[in-house]
């Protein structure tokens, strides 16, 4: 499946990109995608902060199953205001 990955703030800086496509196997979850990103980007492997996850702009749980064409956002602790 082809997934669009959005990274923000510190995650974006650590990965060196905020917007990329990833190929992942059928049936993958948000967690599978995150594990893959951490393997691919050394800068993400040390991330320990609590993240939130959004698929197509809706918050989801880490075990949410992805579909082809999904946009997945990894959301570090927000600090707007």
């Amino acid at each position: 499946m082809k997934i669009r990955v959005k990274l923000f703030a510190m995650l974006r800086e650590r990965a060196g990109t905020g917007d990329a496509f990833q190929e992942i196997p059928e049936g993958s979850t948000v967690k599978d995608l995150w594990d893959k990103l951490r393997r691919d980007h050394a800068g993400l492997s040390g991330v320990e902060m609590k993240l939130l996850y959004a698929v197509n702009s809706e918050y989801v749980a880490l075990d949410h199953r992805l579909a082809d064409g999904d946009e997945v956002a990894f959301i570090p602790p927000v600090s707007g205001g």
Partner: protein
Amino acid sequence: MYRLTDKPIELNELLAFVGDPAAGAAATFIGTTRDNNEGRSILSLDYEAYPGMAEQEMARLGEEAEEKWQITRMAMVHRIGNVPIGEASVIIAVSAPHRDDAFKACRYAIDELKKRVPIWKKETYRGGEVWIGSQTGERFTTPPTIGS
């Protein structure tokens, strides 16, 4: 009106939007960038957002406020990009027939925005920068950037 902007936020525009002859009260909240945080002098501030989802979450919490209180209209605008010290990073305006509803809905909106609208603030000090909310125990300055 739920919006991101990279230009100065115009309070009068929000007030015009929420104004209504049937609404006797309007409460606003204006968040401005400060020149210091926990004793450290701030040189500059930058905001980043997840466009699309940020506006959607703002609209959602506006709808929640409408369910909880009798409000006439709400407007919420967050600035992104570099925000000079002392300028507004966020403005919320709520009109209502009665002030109790206006105050409570406005307070709810800013509290919830800070909890869940996907927007991030980076503070730059002399010698380093920090993404607020993402600080770790190690007290990093500029994090290393790894190429993709």
